[in-house]
């Protein structure tokens, strides 16, 4: 331990840790723009500067390792003035679009202007006027609002292993763009939205589907149904002052009915259905010498990544559609039939923690006879906006139950929201399918938590099932490379595109707050601890769906509706 003095008070620092970390633990707030937790500091923005005794210049605290006792002043007149000047320079060419901006009141740049008391434009630069990039089905880029902090570039390359955006040009013309300054849609972008959640400004946002959804809700000919993904109910409460990680599925269901949705379904129901199909597929591959390791297929960013960068592994992907798409498919077949509605008259909305789900829903493979499984996808953030727009406060709306026939879920389906959850749910059901018995202990601790790479071995009647769980595609890349180089011990691998799984998805609240992600995860584990139905094969509604409609897992109807195929793609990474 090193004792340092922070603003005149002693504090114990870990030797070698970055000063910024120490300051945060000490409860001292120093603003940052380019800092990203878990990655090497870039020192680009200098927002985090402090005065350190014995050092002449101001020092960026995010890139200063604490090694010896020293005195730090975080808010000296000089440090505060330096920060204010940086902000004044950043906004000198800013479009000042706050009133119409997606980030209005949730913008780091705006916060800094406010905190540092910038009240007039001392530096007038030429307004930055880069054209917007609306080419992507998931992400809208507005480079004129960019402050060139570089976080999107680093996340895309270092966390996701994609690297489809970078700084291009130089000097006053430099901006963030793709190879050849093309649209994001023709780049290697996998639509994950991790760049969006780390962006401090409105330079990156999701492609909103709110207008389409509102139009459908107002259209008397449409039956508008909605589903919500497992991670959403443990997240959306945050925007209404409820505890982080609290499950507000009931209030959210009530609110969605008040918004005018005809039916509210739970995507965790089709997560259970996915497990029935996927565990059957795994058992089938294991027993018939099928291609292994099997790779999960519910994360659409990951799917596009394999199609683009690892096409030789397409055969390892499970053919199961994602829970969102399975729900879409059974809504416009079984449900339409049961309710005597023409599938053309159903407008099917999903609420997802994810921007890539917008891309997935638009894939041509996700259509049958010209009817899309899913018509619109809203992110968690868009849901919050929609609720605000209609004066609905989740802290006030009484809880209601989801609708039959797709409203019942088990905690296994709910676990899909956290990295490792699909694996845990699949192990529970695969064990039952092979042995006819339930596991003695359902919880597989080794696959829980925030680690980017997790492994476990499970004994299924004498056979050892080796599994791995990775999240963040950089980790997936490394694992796929090992497999390409001959690693052969693994049978089944769960891959989630976003680090930590859907609870950290690209459609979740801005800021990529790791602590909040952990608590959302805990929220899901808590449900699994409290409730009694913890295995997908014990979901009574799923059983009924098989009895009345699908037959059994991997049946002809299942294949037609619930499975898909993938195509190698050309893209410039």
């Amino acid at each position, binding site marked *: 331990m090193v004792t340092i003095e922070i603003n005149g008070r002693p504090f114990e620092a870990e030797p070698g840790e970055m000063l910024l970390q120490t300051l945060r633990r000490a409860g001292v707030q120093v603003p940052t723009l380019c800092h990203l937790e878990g990655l090497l500091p870039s020192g680009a923005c200098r927002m985090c500067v402090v005065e350190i005794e014995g050092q002449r210049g101001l020092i960026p605290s995010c890139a200063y390792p604490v090694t010896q006792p020293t005195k730090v002043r975080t808010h000296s007149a000089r440090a505060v003035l330096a920060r204010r000047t940086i902000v004044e320079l950043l906004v000198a060419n800013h479009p000042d679009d706050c009133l119409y901006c997606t980030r209005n009141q949730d913008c780091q740049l705006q916060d800094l202007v406010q905190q540092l008391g910038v009240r007039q434009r001392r530096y007038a630069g030429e307004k930055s006027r880069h054209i917007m990039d609306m080419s992507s089905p998931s992400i809208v880029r507005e480079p004129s609002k960019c402050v060139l902090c570089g976080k999107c570039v680093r996340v895309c390359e270092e966390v996701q292993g994609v*690297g489809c955006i970078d700084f291009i040009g130089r000097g006053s013309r430099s901006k963030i763009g793709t190879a050849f*300054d093309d649209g994001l849609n023709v780049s290697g972008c996998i639509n994950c939205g991790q760049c969006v959640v780390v962006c401090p400004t409105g330079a990156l946002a999701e492609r909103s589907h709110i207008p389409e959804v509102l139009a459908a809700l107002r259209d008397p000919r449409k039956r508008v149904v909605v589903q919500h993904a497992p991670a959403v109910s443990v997240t959306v409460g945050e925007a209404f002052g409820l505890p982080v990680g609290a499950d507000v599925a009931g209030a959210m269901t009530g609110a969605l009915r008040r918004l005018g949705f005809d039916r509210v379904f739970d995507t965790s129901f089709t997560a259970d259905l996915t497990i029935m199909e996927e565990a059957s597929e795994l058992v089938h591959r294991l027993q018939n010498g099928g291609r292994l390791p099997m790779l999960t297929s519910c994360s659409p960013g990951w799917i596009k990544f394999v199609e683009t960068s690892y096409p030789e592994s397409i055969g390892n992907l499970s053919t199961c559609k994602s829970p969102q798409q399975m729900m879409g498919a059974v809504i416009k077949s079984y449900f339409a039939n049961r309710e005597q509605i023409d599938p053309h008259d159903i407008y099917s909305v999903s609420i997802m923690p994810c921007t890539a789900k917008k891309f997935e829903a638009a894939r041509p493979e996700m259509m049958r006879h010209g009817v899309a499984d899913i018509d619109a996808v809203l992110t968690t953030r868009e849901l919050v906006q929609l609720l605000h727009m209609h004066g609905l406060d989740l802290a006030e709306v009484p809880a209601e139950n989801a609708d039959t026939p797709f409203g019942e879920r088990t905690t296994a389906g709910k676990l899909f929201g956290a990295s490792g959850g699909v694996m845990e749910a699949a192990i529970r059901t695969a064990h039952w399918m092979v042995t006819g018995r339930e596991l003695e202990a359902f919880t597989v601790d080794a696959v829980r938590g925030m680690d980017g790479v997790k492994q476990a071995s499970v004994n299924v009647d004498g056979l050892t099932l080796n599994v791995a769980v990775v999240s963040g595609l950089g980790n997936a890349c490394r694992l796929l490379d090992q497999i390409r180089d001959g690693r052969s011990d693994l049978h089944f691998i769960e891959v989630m595109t976003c680090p930590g799984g859907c609870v950290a998805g690209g459609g979740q609240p801005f800021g990529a707050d790791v602590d909040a992600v952990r608590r959302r995860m805990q929220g899901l584990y808590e449900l699994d601890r409290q409730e009694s139905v913890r295995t997908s094969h014990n979901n009574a509604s799923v059983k009924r769906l098989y009895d009345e409609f699908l037959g059994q897992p991997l049946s002809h109807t299942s294949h037609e509706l619930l499975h898909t195929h993938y195509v190698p793609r050309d893209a410039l990474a």
Partner: protein
Amino acid sequence: MIVVLPETTPEPDLESILAEYPLARRESLIPLLQEVQEHHGYLSRPAIVRIGQHLDLPTSKIYGVATFYNQFRFQPQGRYHVQVCRGTACHVKGSAAVFEAIKRELKIDAGQTSRDRMFSLEVVACIGACGLAPVICINDVFHASVTPQSVIKILDSYRKKAAKHDDQAA
């Protein structure tokens, strides 16, 4: 990471240039780009993609680095390659106005090539002819003491030259 090649294949001698840089990494990027440009006159899309694969770097990174430096072009040179000196002596003698006049006349910016492929434009540092400032250089021919007015006439003379040449050829 692996990137699937787009359909167009790069110029044949790109591979031989790459072969001179086996096991190349990030450090080799700039020299490699320079050499490719020297041979091809510019950096084509397929070449940029192929260089990315060779160095195991994302294409966006190659493009980002290449656009950082003024020396790289992304369009083939025109029939006449116009270099405008922006060195100090030329600047003092009014090269900025000359540059503006050329841009207006050709409707292109530095690094670009006119639609008819007749002219391409490049800004260069001092070309060692300060006594003749401001200087422009077209296909290695120097034009001294140019003005925003005279430069239009010069460009026109090249257009005429091209037309005449094409007539004779026909």
